[in-house]
């Protein structure tokens, strides 16, 4: 404790250089936490949204899934294919088919089937009110929180041609992406967006999860000769393809995040080197009054550790405010996720910055700990 007090006094009474080092560390750690939060948020969305026994059938020629257009008539063909247990259709309406950070995604679903395909939780009475009323909607809790919606409110989405609905319930969902979505009746959405008889995709539940590949092949073979040929994939593969444009970018930025931690090493190493160079006389004095090499080393490393921990805490807090507290969301092709700076990520950022700061400080600290007192005093004079 007494050494920490000495270190803090030394840093606080000549604060400019350590403050710059702390800010460099904070910037690096906030970058690290932000990009890792995005990466992990995306992975979590993919993991929670994909079910092993569900296939997604969509337009063979549309690389952007929400732009996929399939006829409602495909349903009867799908239901007849061996191995298919259940089918439901879905129409996506989103403001654009690209990566945006403020995207409204409306899913037209079949109320009678939605709960067989999606694990959503809301009061039964709310669901009944939704199922029994054209123009009703249930909204995910993140969407409701984001836009400040409440049950009973009527909402008109100007960006979607004035699409209007009354909120009858707010749900929680196991699939993270769904919690940012608005669910309305499929037929209502088809009429409201002037797309009668059209769906975006079908969800197909297979009887045997081991046979998804064979069933997918059978579906695409069966519909190959139709006016709207299909491409069928497992839900995870579908989601992977849907978000591939973003996931590549996210993976790259995650690498940048780890690279940003290199800045911690540079910032602290440079600050400590400069500080030591300016304090040669002070360190010689410490050794004159009796500081041994391990004690000088410990003091210098403590300074690096303080920079690493203070900067790490500041950076993690900044990332938390930026990402979690601001309810930041990312959406790609209609699939949304909310990156989150979790306590585990905060600890990871803090731990890594502390470790890197100490590692970066070790060489200059080791060198100065070996300083010969008489030579150092002569040099300082």
């Amino acid at each position, binding site marked *: 404790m*007494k*050494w920490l007090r*000495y270190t803090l*006094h*030394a840093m606080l*009474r*000549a604060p400019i250089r350590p403050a710059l080092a702390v800010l460099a560390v904070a910037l690096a750690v906030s970058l690290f936490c932000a990009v890792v939060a995005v990466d992990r948020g995306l992975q979590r969305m993919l993991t929670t949204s994909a079910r092993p026994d569900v296939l997604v059938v969509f337009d063979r020629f549309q690389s952007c899934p929400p732009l996929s257009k399939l006829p409602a008539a495909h349903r009867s063909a799908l239901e007849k294919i061996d191995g298919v247990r259940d089918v439901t259709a879905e129409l996506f309406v989103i403001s654009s088919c690209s990566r945006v950070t403020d995207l409204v995604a409306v899913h037209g679903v079949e109320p009678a089937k939605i709960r067989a395909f999606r694990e959503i939780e809301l009061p039964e009475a709310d669901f009944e009110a939704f199922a029994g009323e054209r123009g009703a909607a249930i909204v995910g809790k993140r969407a409701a929180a984001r836009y400040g919606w409440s049950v009973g409110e009527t909402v008109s989405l100007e960006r979607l041609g004035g699409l209007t609905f009354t909120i009858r319930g707010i749900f929680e969902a196991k699939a993270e992406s769904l919690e940012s979505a608005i669910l309305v009746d499929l037929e209502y959405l088809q009429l409201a967006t002037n797309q009668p008889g059209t769906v975006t995709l079908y969800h197909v539940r297979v009887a045997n999860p081991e046979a998804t590949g064979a069933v997918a092949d059978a579906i695409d073979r069966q519909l190959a000769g139709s006016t709207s040929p299909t491409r069928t994939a497992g839900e995870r593969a579908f989601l992977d393809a849907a978000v591939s444009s973003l996931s590549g970018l996210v993976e790259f930025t995650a690498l940048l995040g780890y690279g940003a931690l290199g800045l911690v090493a540079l910032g602290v190493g440079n600050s400590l080197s400069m500080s030591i160079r300016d304090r040669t*006389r*002070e360190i010689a*004095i*410490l*050794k*004159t*009054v*009796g*500081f*041994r*090499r*391990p*004690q000088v080393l410990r003091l210098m490393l403590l300074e690096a550790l303080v920079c690493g921990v203070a900067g790490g805490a500041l950076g993690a807090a900044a990332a938390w405010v930026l990402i979690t507290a601001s309810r930041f969301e990312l959406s790609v092709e209609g699939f949304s996720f909310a990156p989150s700076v979790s306590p585990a990520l905060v600890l990871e950022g803090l731990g890594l910055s502390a470790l890197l700061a100490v590692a970066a400080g070790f060489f200059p600290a080791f060198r100065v700990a070996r300083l*010969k*007192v*008489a030579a150092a*005093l002569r040099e300082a*004079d």
Partner: protein
Amino acid sequence: MNAVVQIESVHKIHRRGPEQIDVLQGVDLTVGSGEFLALMGPSGSGKTTLLNLMAGIDSPTSGRVVVHGRDISQFNEDQLAAWRTRNIGYIFQAYNLVPVLTAYENVELPLLLLRIPTRRRHEQVMNALETVGLADRRRHLPSQLSGGQEQRVAIARALAPDPPLLLGDEPTGNLDRENAGLVLDLIGLLCRELGKTFVMVTHDPKAAAAATRVLHMEKGVLRESREAHT
């Protein structure tokens, strides 16, 4: 008089590239307990090197440096550092206080290395500051003190662990006449009243006049010049 310092046939050679400088050439010296010794001589004569050898912050090329019966020339660097904390108080010409620490914290610095309870540490710091008459300035940073006050804080720092041997490298060199007089009086008092042994390097004959013995160094050789003042 008990010998506190015994220097026996000490040689010190500095090497700068191919050049070899014989800084000390077979120096012999004994300093007794309670003695106030002044080392005089021109720049480069080796007096600061001799002082550094007594402090254990430099080591001889050959010969023995015995302080309180222990041959410190055999110690390694960490042993010397630990030994210095309890046995040596070193006062520099340029005060050399740590600029970011208050007067109190500067004086406390060597005590942090000793395992003593906080209360006793506080008492020792305050005693040292009171001895030099600066207890009321304990919260001041060095930049808020005059040169004379800084040097007195440096003396308090040297005194705080209660070492028997104090070493001063031009301790009055940066002070005006009045402050130099105050510091020399204080040093004299420490030797007389507290039984400290003080070895001082100085250029100033007036400062040397305050010592009980004065030695001259020239080209690494020591010459006795006076043993007078009592």
